[in-house]
């Protein structure tokens, strides 16, 4: 169903070519020895994280609840500020960014989409463009375009409210909202966690398709190793606030790391795991 829609998004960025090349060379997101602990506590939530995400990559942060993967994500769009170390986005330190500008250039998707229940689907999706002062007509055509991209019929869904949608539909709207102002970077926090397995599989596949076609860079948080293998170009395994390893999916499954092996074993135990995502339709 998704493939019926042609690629129409991703307009030309208003940046000169040589600057573009610079941007491509520099990592889009870079962590240098970053630690974070809550004000009241001395126990660090994450400690000494160092990694980078290149243009067009999808980094999946994989780990159990409480391992610090969501905190890591929130450090990127400055919902949190590091206790020590430096976070850079587009080569620029996070503290040098105007947080409002930074967030509007960063798509953010959370579980259930975090949609505004009092906004219609169209207003939810058009939120950042509206904040950026786009013209009404332009917002409307962008909303219709995005609804089509995520596989929702604009005429049917634009005027609905989030409460009238299924979980999967809400999640699609959440992704569409994150893409609306054509941000170079997407942050996703267990976006498909609350969905039934079939809907989740379908959305995962569409997400991979989408990021490749739109050449988006993404940081994707999950505790599901199959999801990690499917959507990630790189997998960062986290435990107790530390990054244990950072590998491509191919190398991840071959890893000898004990913790990684424990995750990989769950794949073998699951029936039909050789083709986990085929035949979901």
């Amino acid at each position, binding site marked *: 169903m998704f493939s019926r829609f042609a690629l129409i998004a991703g307009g030309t960025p208003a940046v000169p070519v040589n600057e573009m090349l610079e941007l491509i060379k520099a990592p889009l997101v870079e962590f240098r020895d970053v630690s974070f602990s809550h004000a009241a506590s001395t126990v660090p939530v994450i400690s000494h994280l160092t990694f980078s995400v290149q243009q067009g990559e999808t980094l999946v942060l994989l780990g159990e609840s409480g391992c610090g993967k969501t905190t890591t994500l929130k450090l990127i*769009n400055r*919902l949190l500020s590091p206790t020590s170390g430096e976070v850079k986005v587009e080569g620029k330190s996070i503290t040098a960014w105007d947080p*409002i*500008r*930074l*967030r*509007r250039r*960063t798509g*953010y998707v*959370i*579980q*259930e*989409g*975090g*949609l*505004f*229940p*009092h906004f219609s689907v169209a207003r939810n999706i058009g*939120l*950042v463009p509206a*904040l950026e002062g786009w013209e009404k007509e332009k917002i409307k055509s962008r909303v219709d375009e995005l609804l089509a991209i995520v596989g929702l019929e604009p005429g049917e869904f634009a*005027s*609905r*409210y989030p*409460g*009238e949608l299924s979980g999967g539909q809400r999640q699609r709207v959440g992704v569409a*909202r994150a893409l609306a102002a054509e941000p170079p970077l997407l*942050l996703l926090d267990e976006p498909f966690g609350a969905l039934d397995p079939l809907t989740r599989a379908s959305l995962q596949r569409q997400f991979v398709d989408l990021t490749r076609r739109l050449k988006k860079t993404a940081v994707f948080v999950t505790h599901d190793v199959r999801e990690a293998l499917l959507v990630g170009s790189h997998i960062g395994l986290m435990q107790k606030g530390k990054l244990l390893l950072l590998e491509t999916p191919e190398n991840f499954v071959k890893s000898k790391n004990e913790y990684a092996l424990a995750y990989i074993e769950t794949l073998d135990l699951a029936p039909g795991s050789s083709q986990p995502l085929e035949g979901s339709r």
Partner: protein
Amino acid sequence: MSFWHYLQQNWTELLQHLREHLWLVFISTLIAVAIGLPTGILLTRKKSLRGPILGIANVMQTIPSLALFGFLIPLPFIGGIGARTAIVALVLYSLLPIIRNTVTGILGVDPNVREAAVAMGMTGSQVLWQVELPLAMAVIITGVRVALVIAIGVTTIAAAVGAGGLGVFIFRGIRQFDNNLLLAGAVPAALLALTADFGLGLVEKYFSVTRKRKAVAGSGRRKITIGAVTAIIAAVVTGVYVGSRDSRDSRSHGFLPKPRVVVGSKDFTESAILGEIAAQMLEARGVIVERKFELGGNLPHEGLLASQIDIYPEYSGTAYTAILKHAPITDPRAVYDQVKQEYAEKFKIALSEPLGFDNTFAILVRGAEARRLKLKTISDAAPYVRNWRAGFGQDFMSRADGYPGFVKAYGLKFADQPREMDLSLTYIALSSGKVDLIAGNSTEGRIAALDLVQLEDDSHYFPPYEGVYLVRNDSLSRVPALNEVLGKLAHAISTEEMRQLNYEVDANKRGQAEVVREWLKRKGFMAP
């Protein structure tokens, strides 16, 4: 007379008081929202302020309304007599539900939604206006709804500080034992509260998010509902506005600026009749009169001191004991002279000649009881009171020439602590056997009608209570007609006449304005 018949007859007055009522409620709720909403928002940002401020608002609401009114009267700027004081009190009462619901509503917004709003790149004020306030709106409206219903109720008490409203009927009804009057105030007030509650209930539903989930098809109807509510509110506000402008226009009508006098009265029939007598006589002499009648407790005195009232009827004994705080004495001349001198020195207030009647405390028992026990004087009754219950007005219980000295002078011991109640209710309580002895007024019109007997004050305990007017000196020099009117009224009203006037209003349920007009005509006082 049936209630509906009564309403038809008093339609214009009902509308006027309804308008005053609506106006007070509308203005005070508007101010309360203007203060409460920002305060509530602030409290969601500053956690440390939440406890103290909600605490203060909470305490405000526990203060009995009459006490709050009393407390506000002497304050400069916000106090005084009339609508302003009432509005201040109403605002204080309305604040708590509005602040509390604003805080609850905003803090109740799903943290995921708020985080998403921040992560989308909304600024602080965008998060507030586009996300937090709309999502909290249903809860905030509930707060306004509660505040509005409270305000409609409390406004009935505002009549005690001369702010008008439907409470005027209620107070008058209680005083005159007139259920029609009471209902004429209570029923519209109750209907008003129900209507406001229902109307805002619809607004609340409109804002509630849960309804939006299922309401695609119903959105047309929703618009009609909200339209209707808006139209009703607009109509009421327009009506109130036009109404208040009308009454202002009618007051300023005329070619030459006429002198203006504010006539006050206390909150019982006799005082209101005396106020009305002065008012009509002044009006007949081309003075514009504003009536601030039916003021409770010490309010007329406070009002006179604060220049909010020019003249009001008082009793020499009351001024002597309750205001000048002298121990009661029984010589009328000495009391009058002392009061006149001290008022002139201390307050720059003049005392008129005595009006001719003495309204002293009348110790009353049921006629049947008096005849059976052959009671003529209070001393006659002293042996029996051991088995009697007494009922006294709040005034009598607290004043220097009241209860404590009275029981001491006659060596009385009642079966129980006396029941403290509204003075006007004590007559009914006595005649229906709820109590056995009361301290009424000697000019009370219904003493004979209810077959009550006044026991003679044989120990001469009660000081004289000659009726007089108190007038500000500056009002006397500003409005010469005041001198003329007071001159005519000197020694002009006998105790018999006063009792008759009271009886016409209290027992025969006639309007005091009409009763006074008749009496003035008979006396030939209307013509200058």
